[in-house]
């Protein structure tokens, strides 16, 4: 069965007996047909395991550059929602003794890549999130001091572990690849990482403590 060139919400794409509904599609139970739920060009990915069915999906489209406020970039007015497991880049807004408040700026899709090579999407709005004290580090959790891991303004790579409560997503940095990736010193200079827990200011020569993300 050939897929239509362009799909719009409600367009039947194929029977659920031969396809699996992927992102951008949904299953209508009464007719057991997979319908499109967003507008776009439908694609199907071949089955990963033998005996399983190909997945139908519709990739989300960005607004056309003629209409977008910033042309030739992937900044859009549409948000990609962080889900459990997605890698995010965020900025620290507040450091408390029990938790670190951050805002999510960029959302990457698949976990495991840690944002390497994957297409990140810049959020139109900032999503509130927290890194709890026990989620900062994987080991010796009870000895963690939040102020020795983060400072306001740091850019942090984290993974969403929960949708959290009413306002905050919960993130973790408890892995080698996760933590602070960009930081400025107290003097206001950009610093570079020198160890798993230290950044160095090239101007003053002083070091500051951070939960440093392992560079790729």
């Amino acid at each position, binding site marked *: 069965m050939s897929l239509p060139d362009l799909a719009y919400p409600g367009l039947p794409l194929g029977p659920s007996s031969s396809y699996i509904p992927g992102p951008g599609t*949904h299953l209508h139970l009464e007719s057991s047909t997979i319908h499109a739920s967003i507008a*776009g060009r439908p694609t199907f990915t071949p089955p990963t395991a033998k005996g399983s069915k190909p997945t139908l999906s519709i990739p989300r489209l960005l607004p056309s550059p003629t209409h977008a406020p910033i042309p030739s970039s992937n900044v859009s007015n549409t*948000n990609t929602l962080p889900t459990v497991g997605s890698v995010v880049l965020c900025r620290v807004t507040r450091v408390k003794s029990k938790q670190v408040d951050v805002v999510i700026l960029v959302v990457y899709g698949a976990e495991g890549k840690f944002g390497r090579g994957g297409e990140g999407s810049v959020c139109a709005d900032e999503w509130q999130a927290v890194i709890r004290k026990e989620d900062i580090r994987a080991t010796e959790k009870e000895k963690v001091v939040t102020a020795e891991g983060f400072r306001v303004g740091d850019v942090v790579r984290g993974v969403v572990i929960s949708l959290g409560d009413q306002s905050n997503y919960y993130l973790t940095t408890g892995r080698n690849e996760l933590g602070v990736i960009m930081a400025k010193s107290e003097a206001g200079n950009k610093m570079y990482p020198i160890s798993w827990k230290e950044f160095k200011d090239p101007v003053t020569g002083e070091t500051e403590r951070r939960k440093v993300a392992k560079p790729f």
Partner: protein
Amino acid sequence: MDRRRVNGPPGGTTPPCYASTSSGKTHPSSKRTRGANEIRKIFLKTGLTPSASGSAYFELETPPTNHSNSLTNRTPALKLTCTVHGPRPLPRSAPFSPQLLLSTRVKFAPFAARQRRGYIPDSSERDLAAHLETALRGVLIGERWPKSGVDVVITVLEGEEDCPWHALAAGNQNGRTGGWGMMSILSGCITVASAALTDAGIDCVDVVIGGVAAIVRQPAAPAQLVLDPCPSDHEEIIAACVIGYLQSRDEVTETWAKGNITASSDGMGTTPMGFDALVDQAVEAAVAARRVLVEAIREGTEAKIQGSQIDFHAIGAALNIKENAARMRFYRLRKAIEEGEPGATPTKAATTPTKRKKDQANSDEGSAKKVKDEEVVDEAEGGEEGEGN
């Protein structure tokens, strides 16, 4: 003297008062020229508001008038614009929501009707918003957007009124928007909001389309069922019904009926005129309007897919060829790459970066020289393919 606000001039002004052109004469009401099961022509376009996540503009055909061309004599048509903002984070005070929270707002522009509207939403606007919300809630797949909200804002730029403006000027006070005109406004709101939601890329089970049907009576004629009534076309509207309809699942998300249906079923004609017949006709109107909506979505999506729209004029100028020649060359190459023609495969590696360079030319026209160098490769390939065919 109010010191906290900007005060007007001390002398005071009087608003201009225009003389009525109709000079008290009542013109005959404009007549419906289309058939009973024919809807008005619709203009619909998506993606017109750059700052919104999704947007759409909706307009109904202005009915032809047999009066003079005076501005006050024209029959108002329906013009709506819709913007969708979101999905965006909920305010901090809002409780946890596992679903997308929908909020709708309908506002008449102050100049939408002959009677000026205030800035504070009045009851008819809140009413429309509530009806719109029920119509849209049924199509959204809310579970895909937890902890977020979406705002649908509709501005009525021009609303339909119950009788033509010249009749209003002649002292007919029934002509405010708020009567039968509300029905077509709601129907338009549903359609335009559906287009804007699709433009914003929010998951929906189907497109929802508004449709209106009405039972009308002309003097000395039996009552009649018509689709998409224009209030000023009809002497008397007995009942009307708006629905929000999902065609692919044959479901109705919103029904709003008004008028006296029992009184109209006195059976002068052969058509049955119960509530069911009215709803059936409204569904028919929605089905007819769906084609326009689907076509508008298709156009908007195609524009997005073409994404980096290539400025063929600039490329043509840089290459000393015509704009159309540059375009044809691009599409021929793209087709060859997509189809993976055996003749095109050896050059595939070379063509892909060339195409990318072309896209860059769009964003940076200053680099015409660079493009020129790249295009030499392109041109050679284009020639090859031409010979191959």
